[in-house]
């Protein structure tokens, strides 16, 4: 026992001399988490990170069987689901963790928005977070196509067409994304490259920046708690907060396993460009509020195609969300900012309402 400790001690010393283990240790010990009535929201970022890790590992496993071509993609996923032992489990976890990750990411983002954690000096943390949300949606959009089934095929047609309708740059971007004029095998290859190389590389870099900034600035204490003189109580990150984090992650893993086992990912029918779009075509739930909004727009608004008006509006909405740290001057000055609390609530309400309508309003009349 004694010898073991000593041997570890020597290994530690050796490592410390080479990679500076003690500095890392000091850093970990220094990190503290404010304890107040909103502390619970601090867990969402770590939860999203955990689910991202799940995505990376299951994604790598899926790569071993997946074949990115229009002729083979569907069949390779079919083989994975039917023949490969636990193939269904890996794919179902990948699909479910993707949904849960986007969900926790949204909750994280909106909790940060409502608790005004974007205020100085954390503007860049907010920007990197909003950019990561964009990347997560990109992951979802590109990953959806990869099984090359009917639903994914038409959802991608619609999604890339929407990109193509963006004023000025649209047609170019649409072609760039599709790898041609239509959604074909070329689109699949492109989406595959984007999904497994470009997005992961970009997301890892941005995530590094995001985590570095969180580390640098520490957790933000909500302004209203600060004003009440709260937020003085702290708990150490290691081990108190980390252990609680891990409890959350284990719970998430259990939920994932249950979802994957009881509701395995479906595959549906292989995409056929010469069949009509099936009824009930729908995007992933996190695009639903936009999809549903576009449905309600008339063909023309003031002589402009309704679609374009909608796309520009959503683009401006995204830009507004990104620039909130600069627009919310009151919070930046340390004053209460009712307006931006209401804006946050309005955005959440809008997304919830239109998502609800997307699943309940009749698609056919």
């Amino acid at each position, binding site marked *: 026992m004694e010898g073991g400790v000593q041997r570890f001690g020597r290994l530690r010393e050796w490592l410390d001399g080479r990679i500076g283990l003690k500095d890392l240790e000091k850093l970990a010990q220094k990190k503290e988490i404010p304890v107040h009535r909103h502390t619970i929201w601090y867990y969402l970022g770590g939860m999203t990170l955990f689910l991202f890790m799940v995505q990376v590992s299951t994604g790598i496993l899926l790569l071993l069987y997946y074949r990115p071509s229009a002729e083979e993609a569907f069949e390779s996923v079919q083989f994975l689901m039917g023949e490969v032992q636990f193939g269904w489990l890996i794919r179902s976890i990948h699909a479910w963790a993707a949904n849960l990750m986007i969900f926790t990411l949204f909750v994280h983002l909106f909790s940060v928005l409502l608790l005004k954690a974007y205020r100085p000096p954390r503007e860049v943390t907010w920007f990197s977070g909003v950019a990561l949300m964009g990347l997560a949606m990109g992951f979802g959009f590109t990953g959806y196509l990869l099984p090359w089934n009917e639903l994914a095929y038409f959802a991608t047609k619609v999604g890339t067409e929407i990109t193509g309708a963006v004023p000025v740059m649209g047609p170019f971007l649409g072609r760039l994304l599709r790898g041609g004029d239509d959604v074909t095998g070329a689109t699949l290859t492109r989406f595959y490259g984007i999904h497994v190389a470009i997005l992961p590389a970009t997301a890892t870099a941005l995530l590094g920046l995001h985590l570095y900034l969180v580390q640098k600035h520490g957790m933000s204490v909500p302004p209203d708690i600060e004003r009440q003189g709260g937020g003085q109580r702290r708990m150490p990150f290691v081990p108190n907060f980390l252990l609680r984090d891990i409890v959350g992650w284990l719970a998430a893993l259990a939920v994932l396993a249950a979802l994957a086992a009881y509701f395995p990912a479906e595959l549906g029918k292989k995409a056929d460009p010469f*069949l009509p*779009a099936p009824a009930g075509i729908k995007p992933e739930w996190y695009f639903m509020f936009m999809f549903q909004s576009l449905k309600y727009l008339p063909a023309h608004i003031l002589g402009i195609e309704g679609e374009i008006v909608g796309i520009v509006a959503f683009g401006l909405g995204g830009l507004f969300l990104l620039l909130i740290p600069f627009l919310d001057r009151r919070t930046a000055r340390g004053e209460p900012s009712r307006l931006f609390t209401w804006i946050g609530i309005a955005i959440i309400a809008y997304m919830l309402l239109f998502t609800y309508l997307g699943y309940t309003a009749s698609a056919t009349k």
Partner: protein
Amino acid sequence: MAEHVLEPDSSRRGFVNWFLGLSGVAFFLSTVYPLSRYLVPPRVAESTAGTVTLPIKPDDVKANSGEIFKFGSRPAILVRTPAGDLRAFSAICTHLNCTVQYRTDLTQIWCACHNGHYDLNGKNVEGPPPRPLDAYVVNVRGNQIVVSKSA
């Protein structure tokens, strides 16, 4: 050689800096240009099919029905109206590119993606489509249906 004589040195430095900057720009452009050209997919020749003979016999198309067929590399739809006329349109919804289908119950062409409706002249009558479907010319030659792009 004296160190305090800065004038000629600084102009040389300026030149070298300018030159370095220019090389930097040249390097950047010579990397970005091929890269951006690489990312843009090459133009594939448009499908030249101007006329298609369908693998469907005229008698097999019942009144008030529609069927998708390949027009070159794109889907198109053949419709027989309740009155018995044969018509053909591009099956690509003008809204967001989904493939339309014939709705017997509505006697309309319908797009499932966003609930777009077209009448039997291909005109957009309800929902989000901004334009009518492209119409093709249908000729029945003996036992064959020949569809061509409008002359």
